[in-house]
């Protein structure tokens, strides 16, 4: 039951090597082995999206992917999203969430930010319906999503340089 394997993964630009249980999920690997507890587990069955991280730039459910499947890949988590130079270390998307009250309890927020990071990278001109569609796999019980959508659109505008900041 406890077969192990050694993996090497790049996480937020840093190379990590661990001997792990083959059944360890990617989310648990990040949280337990690397102490990156910003990736949250909301349902552990792939619906709520709280555990979303980027693997080679694509949003995946950290609860449905095994850590061994991430071997040799590049993983980005909420801890790798900030901008060290900016106030409070917040990147453009994170700052937009704070300005628009795009979070209340904040538990679903890391997954939502990672989903949007992928969207804005692929689709910098995202419209409201693009944002809503991209986020349809992320559950939030607090906000009703409205301010999340506003924050995402604001971030898109800024990233596009359409808004002088």
């Amino acid at each position, binding site marked *: *039951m406890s077969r192990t394997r050694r993996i090497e993964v790049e996480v937020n630009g840093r190379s990590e090597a661990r001997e792990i*249980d083959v*059944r*360890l999920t990617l989310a648990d690997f990040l*949280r*337990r082995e690397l*102490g*990156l*507890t*910003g*990736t*949250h*587990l*909301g*349902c*552990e*069955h792939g*619906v*709520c999206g*709280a555990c979303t991280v980027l693997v080679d730039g694509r949003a995946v459910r950290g609860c449905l992917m095994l850590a061994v499947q991430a071997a040799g890949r590049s993983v980005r*988590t*909420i*801890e790798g*999203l*900030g901008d060290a130079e900016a106030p*409070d*270390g*917040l990147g453009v998307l*994170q700052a937009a*969430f*704070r*300005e628009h*009250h795009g*979070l*209340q*309890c*904040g*538990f*679903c*927020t*890391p997954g939502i*930010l990672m989903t949007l990071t992928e969207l804005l990278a692929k689709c910098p001109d995202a419209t409201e319906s693009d*944002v*809503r*569609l991209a*986020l*349809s*796999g*992320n*559950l*939030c*019980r*607090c*906000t*009703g*999503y*409205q*301010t*999340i*959508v506003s924050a995402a659109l604001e971030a898109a505008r800024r990233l596009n340089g359409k808004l002088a900041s």
Partner: protein
Amino acid sequence: MRHTGPTFGKRVERVEDASLLTGRARFVDDIRIPGMLEAAYVRSPFPHALVRSIDVTQARALEGVHAVLTVADLRPALTQERIPLALSSKELSGLAQKSLRDDITPPVLALDEVCYVGEPVVLIVADSRYIAEDAIALVAIDYEPLEAVADITSALTAGGPRVHRDIDGNVLAEYVLSYGDYERATATAAHLFQLDLKQHRGCAHPLEGRGVLAMHDALEQRTTVWSSTQSPHEVRLTLVQLLGLDDEELHVVTPDVGGGFGAKYLTYPEEVSITIAARLLGRPVKWIEDRREHFLTAIQERDQLWQVEIALDAEARILGIKGEMMHDQGAYTPQGINVSYNSATAVPGPYKVPSYELRVRAVETNKVPTMPVRGAGYPQATFAMERLLDHAAREIGIDRAEIRRRNLIQTEEMPYTTPLKTRAGTPVKYDSGDFPLCQAMALDQIGYDGFEARRAEAARDGRLLGVGFANATKGTGRGPFETATVRVGRSGRVSVYTGAAAMGQSTATMLAQIVADQLGVEFGQVNVVAGDTRYTSMGHGGFASRQAVNAGSSAHEASVKVREKALLIASQLLEQPVDALELSGGRIWLKGQSNVSLGLGDLAREASGIPGYSLPKGIEPGLEHTANFMPKGLVYSNGCHAVEVEVDRATGAVRLERYVIVSDCGELINPMVVDGQVIGGAVHGIGNALFEWMGYDEMAQPITTTFAEYLLPTTTELPRIELTHVVHRSPLNPLGIKGVGEVGTIPAAAAIISAVEDALRPFGVRIDETPILPPRIVALVNASSTAAGASGPASS
């Protein structure tokens, strides 16, 4: 968005956000302590069964397992096997029934009978949750299944199965709430209408489930319990009582809490057994609820059946309402009868109801216990009232808006005292507000007057449009009090310690704004410590939209006192009268002289004294004050929701075209936060109306235990909600505020169902239930078409 100066009433960014946005927040599952073990529970797969024997031998033998505990193992550490009743339901003493049975609360772990699927039976503690879950399969339990009670109707069937083997009948409580003379009212009534309503509300579903971590420090002889709870002081009280400890021997700390919505406002069996396990093993033990466990074991609100009658005069004015309501209480009662009582007292809402009589039965079933979920019984009462009015309007032939205008409490009648009593025994008295105004504004904004033209135009394309709206009130700010201590440290740092518990409602920002305004400091510099029993001896935590009203008012009162004291000390030190001084930027200045000032830290040092010397004259020690604001009654928020929908006749899908809210929550401390609370609340209500259904089969086996089966609203189902605030200050607290957490939820289902029914008007469909899911809409349309002997109007 950075503000200097007073922030009350301003849209300021929250102090909570930076850590939440960067992954630095600390939820209970984020805490790892060296030597920590992890837990999992073996839970009953049966809704009702006897536990004949439990064999844990194999599970104990699994490598990495440290303990496999049954109730017998916990017993030596317990003063009693059941969790004490959280609310004693004193309201019953004024009604027909004197009290509740004394064996109605859940046991800490199953005794010899399990009464719902998911009831914890065995606790396994292992090196990791992975191993603990492996061990679940190795525990052998011999159950003898018993007949189960799956719903209210079968619970009330004479000679039917019992929820608890030894308890005759399944009615936990029965009472009548009444005033006026309904029988006399019906004698003169021009109209009498009856409705049978089936109402269902689902689960709370904060995105973070429950979770608890306990650590016993043998050196200090002290246990610390980190729990994702809405009521840390209540959890501490329960734990010290059950474990026979003194208050100082056990602390409860809330880390960041990922939402509550009612599901975390009680002490659960897991909090007790994990604490005992940590003390027995001498190692920290953590248990984190998974989503399946939340579906099975976190409290729900679930079902109410209503049979109600309304009497109206010839002008469609209400003469009275009479009826019966049956509430699904579940297998245990951790917290009294408050949901059904709330529902029963909330029926009249913003309307004048001269006579009222509701017989209530709280009925046990073999399902997880019910307790307040966001809205706490009010949505069901609002649904009953609004359905009655819609029905009456249609039958009498007057407009839905007009019948409400005639029956709403009028502007000039406020404040308005109803004959009903809250559970605290105070009258249900609407302290402020303007109900007709809110309705008028909402209808104006949705374009109610022009709706028939839109309906007709849509109908030309074969589309079914409908409009609906609903009014609601919500009693908020329940007492008895909430503590706030405001303290200026000798470094000049300002701290607030409160019994309030944060779970996403911006509690820290709210309190910091209030205190900063009084002390003339940046609100971002105020340190708020909430939900930690080490810093406040008392607290009631987060329920009933109460924390801004109670803790906010206490923080205001305490900071006013601290400000006065600071000025008094400065006046002595500077030898100047108080009115020559002013407070800004964390310093007290001599007016007009920019070179004479004292920092708050300097004054705090003065107030803390020098060994052997006297304090300044007339000054009590410490630059701090504790206030316990005690509300004189509930503060009533209100709102009107108006919604326009399109219903797809073929699929039963409901599309929300527009959603308008006019809300009165009194003064807004931070409008951005209030918007978030009201809109988030409304979306919870939208879920209750259109998506959320917690299913059980006829054997009481849960059948919706994933988010793929139980649907929460997502981004693509929602329109941009249009929210307007009307501000009527509450006279009942110094800030003029009202609770905001639930008022957005309450009228949603009533408004949406009204709109869906309106859209289906061509088919004559009546909807007397919530939620209304697409298959049910299709069935109702088909049934009505069959009854009419036609396929219904094609595109008339």
